[in-house]
């Protein structure tokens, strides 16, 4: 309780007839004038009007008010208005509170009971103001650079949008090239654009952009700080090739004696230890993969360096740790496919002619291991009967993933259609449970696959896939006719569930960003804040947040970028001061508060500390604190209890 006697003013608004038509405003003002701590009470037709605000300002000065209660409409309407007005009159805005006697009284009740309730509501808010302290928002500076983690299409789009707004961007990519999964795709639904043809110009734009610095073959190691002021440590692995010197002649790869599965082709082809993931890779350079090289320290082979005329190969290259400051972070770490090795019923990945969707993309791709001819992995034959299995690993809470992976209906239709284009004499079968084609021109695309390409859609989940001789047998069902079906196929393509890319959860932990049960990054609010993490200053883009197709990823990336730009454009960040605080004299450091905070705003050593900037002001920790050492600014326990008692006081109604 403040020692100085409070001087509270109460201003009752008529809101025309909205309030005054039901609540006896004169009576309310009269009752309020008798509330303890109130030195001035009045009523006026429209408090939010200019004369109304002038009345408020005048009263604050004349009566030297230490607090103000405006009994009017919902605080969501005019709390800001009255707080600003009070500030102009020299009163700290946090000493102004609204008693909602319109939405929660006059519009929902009638008769004398309405006035009685209005009196109780106002009385309670007067008690709150009595306990309020003047507060100042905290100001913090902003580092005007952004970090984008992940160089897939989402990361590329976010980086470009932020950089085009004039801010520096660090783009960190784990693999040797940006481009992500989109670079692996053949053509994209529903337009059947060549994926690389639309992606590579954007990659080039990124590489040429003066505001973007690409850190490929690099990973985020550590993050500290808070919104506007993050410090990040990035580990850049050595590529042993100087990108400035490398002229992409490719002689090194030719002489390299190592052959390992090529990740870009999903293992359907081999690469050497020194390689370029794909010709259009950015950064445009070869990379020596130390893990598969015969030996760098000590040097065991060195043939690549011998043939490199540009002298680009540098075996002494070391790992670098970069420390950077950024104001905002975009996470665009993308997805991976659920491993087909997990699919016991579909052969555990041991049947060579059972492949996943991305492998099929590589078979379809003109730059792929078969130069775009559909040839099956086991014997290179052109498959005449191809079965596509949707929901492979999706929508299966019992064994695999419970959720719908969202993109498979569309890419399967595209696969089947492209297969028919490539092998006109072939037959494609698609096993599905539901077709989810909710996107612009998506339904039409699926219809085209069914109607024009005569792809047979069979509504039923596949139970078992096994090899028999040269064939891959598929046991399915057509639930529409109630018949079991068996297809003796040449190739089976599993539309594997979409899962977060490996390491997402570890990254999330470093950033104090939440992951949902299935490991996707969790947005701050599923409806209202889908582009940002709960931690202020961290934004989400692309499939790392949940299965998404390209247009959705790009849209989210642009949205996240807009948020980043808005944040970085602000001269100062202001944080509302209505947050939790610790009384260090009382805190024993028991640590019960810390895990209650979804923002990681609380750290505990000898005592607990609240990072005011991170605290969003829910007060959950305060209610959890057993000793009462944690409190909430202007919503103190004693304050609330006084409100409760005042609201219930038998004589309190006074009418």
């Amino acid at each position: 309780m403040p020692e100085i006697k409070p001087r509270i003013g109460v201003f009752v608004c008529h809101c025309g007839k909205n309030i005054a038509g039901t609540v006896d405003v004169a009576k309310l003002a009269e009752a309020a004038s008798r509330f303890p701590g109130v030195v001035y009470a009045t009523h006026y037709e429209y408090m939010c009007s200019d004369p109304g605000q002038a009345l408020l300002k005048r009263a604050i000065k004349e009566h030297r008010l230490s607090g103000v209660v405006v009994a009017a409409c919902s605080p969501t309407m005019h709390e800001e208005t009255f707080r600003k007005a009070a500030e102009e009159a020299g009163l700290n805005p946090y000493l102004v509170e609204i008693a909602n006697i319109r939405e929660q009284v006059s519009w929902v009740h009638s008769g004398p009971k309405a006035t009685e309730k209005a009196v109780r509501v106002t009385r309670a808010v007067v008690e709150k103001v009595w306990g309020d302290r003047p507060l100042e928002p905290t100001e913090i500076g902003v580092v005007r650079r952004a970090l984008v983690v992940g160089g897939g299409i989402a990361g590329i789009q976010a980086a470009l949008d932020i950089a085009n707004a004039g801010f520096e961007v660090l783009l960190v990519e784990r693999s040797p090239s940006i481009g992500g999964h989109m670079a692996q795709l053949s053509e994209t639904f529903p337009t059947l654009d060549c994926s690389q043809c639309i992606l590579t110009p954007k990659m080039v734009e990124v590489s040429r952009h003066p505001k973007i610095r690409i850190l490929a073959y690099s990973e985020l190691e550590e993050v500290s700080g808070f919104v506007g002021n993050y410090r990040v440590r990035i580990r850049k692995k050595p590529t042993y090739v100087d990108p400035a010197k490398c002229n992409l002649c490719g002689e090194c790869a030719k002489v390299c004696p190592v052959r390992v599965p090529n990740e870009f082709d999903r293992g359907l082809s081999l690469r050497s230890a020194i390689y370029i993931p794909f010709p259009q890779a950015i950064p445009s350079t070869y990379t020596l993969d130390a893990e598969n090289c015969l030996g760098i320290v000590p040097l065991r082979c060195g043939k690549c360096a011998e043939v490199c005329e540009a002298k680009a190969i540098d075996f002494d290259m070391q790992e670098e740790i970069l420390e950077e400051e950024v104001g905002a972070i975009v996470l665009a770490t993308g997805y991976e496919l659920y491993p087909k090795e997990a699919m016991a019923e579909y052969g555990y990945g041991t049947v060579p002619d059972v492949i996943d969707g991305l492998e099929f993309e590589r078979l379809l791709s003109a730059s792929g291991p078969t130069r775009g001819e559909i040839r099956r992995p086991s014997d290179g034959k052109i498959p005449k009967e191809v079965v596509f299995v949707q929901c492979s690993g999706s929508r299966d809470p019992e064994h695999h993933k419970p959720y719908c992976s969202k993109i498979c209906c569309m890419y399967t239709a595209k696969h089947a259609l492209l297969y028919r284009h490539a092998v006109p004499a072939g037959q494609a079968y698609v096993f599905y449970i539901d077709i989810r084609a909710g996107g612009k021109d998506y339904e039409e695309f699926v219809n085209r696959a069914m109607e024009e390409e005569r792809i047979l859609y069979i509504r039923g989940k596949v139970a078992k896939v096994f090899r028999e001789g040269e064939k891959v047998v598929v046991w399915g069902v057509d639930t529409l006719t109630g018949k079991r079906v068996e297809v003796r196929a040449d190739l089976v393509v599993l539309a594997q569930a979409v899962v977060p890319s490996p390491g997402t959860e570890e990254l999330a932990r470093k950033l104090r960003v939440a992951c949902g049960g299935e490991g996707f990054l969790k947005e701050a609010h599923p409806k209202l804040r889908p582009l940002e993490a709960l931690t202020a200053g961290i934004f989400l883009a692309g499939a790392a947040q949940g299965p998404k197709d390209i247009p959705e990823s790009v849209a989210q990336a642009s949205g996240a970028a807009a948020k980043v730009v808005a944040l970085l454009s602000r001269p100062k960040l202001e944080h509302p001061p209505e947050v939790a605080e610790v009384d260090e004299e009382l805190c024993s450091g028991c640590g019960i508060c810390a895990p209650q905070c979804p923002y990681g705003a609380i750290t505990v050593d000898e005592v607990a500390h609240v990072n005011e900037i991170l605290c969003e002001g829910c007060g959950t920790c305060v209610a959890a604190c057993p000793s009462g050492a944690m409190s909430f600014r202007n919503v103190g326990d004693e304050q609330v209890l006084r409100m409760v008692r005042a609201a219930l006081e038998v004589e309190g109604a006074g009418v």
Partner: protein
Amino acid sequence: MERILYFPGCALKDQARGYEEASLAALAKLGYEVKELPRWNCCGTVYSLAQDELMRHVGPVRNLIRAQEEGADEILTLCSMCYNTLRRSARFVEDPESLRRINAFMDDEPDYRGGVEVVHLVQFLEEIGVEKLARAVVRPLHGLRLAAYYGCTLLRPKEVAVDHPDRPEILERLVSTLGAEPVLFPERVECCGAYLTVPRPDIVRERVGEILRSAGLAGAQALLTACPLCKFNLEERRPLGAPRIPVFYVGEALAWALGVREIPAEIGKLLSTGVTG
């Protein structure tokens, strides 16, 4: 000699007598003294799937009580059907309320306290370990293409499966250890038709045809099973035209390799020469 308690079940004393004899001889060779569960009764044969059929657990649980009286915490089974029923009942009474109700049914029996595990011969052999088993092999079955037919009861439901229900490998490991070449075939985990053989032999005949066709296609020279009913169906319900693949019990092949049972002539002639003995 380590002593183990063993539950035979009806088939092992009748049609599958050879399975019991061969298995017990092999276990003795491996250093295990096998004691038959005293006063054993029917395993229950088919595990009841209805929630309210507590009575059907009384038989299996009574066998567990017999084991409890012997101070054993494990019963060995050979017949996979017995294994399935007994082990599922043992799982069922892990729930204290179910146990209480079952015990209440049997006022003339001492209360079952839980904790007796039911294991199948293949699990038991797996625990013994490949090395020890391999050391005991005196007549490796080199050259024999041996296909394990799991059927249902060793694999389903998940709670009692001896290995992954869709891609088990436990029997193939055993086959390799015995020196034979394991043959995988898609139908090895599928049902033979089981007791439908009584009311619907037509269906079972169809199933058996598929199983044998699938095994034959994979090149199996002989089939291994742990189930007397599977063996019956595979032999008695073979449709015309289906490959004739002899069916043996797991314990029999084991006994051949350990040298405690004669290798039948039809198998002997398939073994690579010069490696027996």
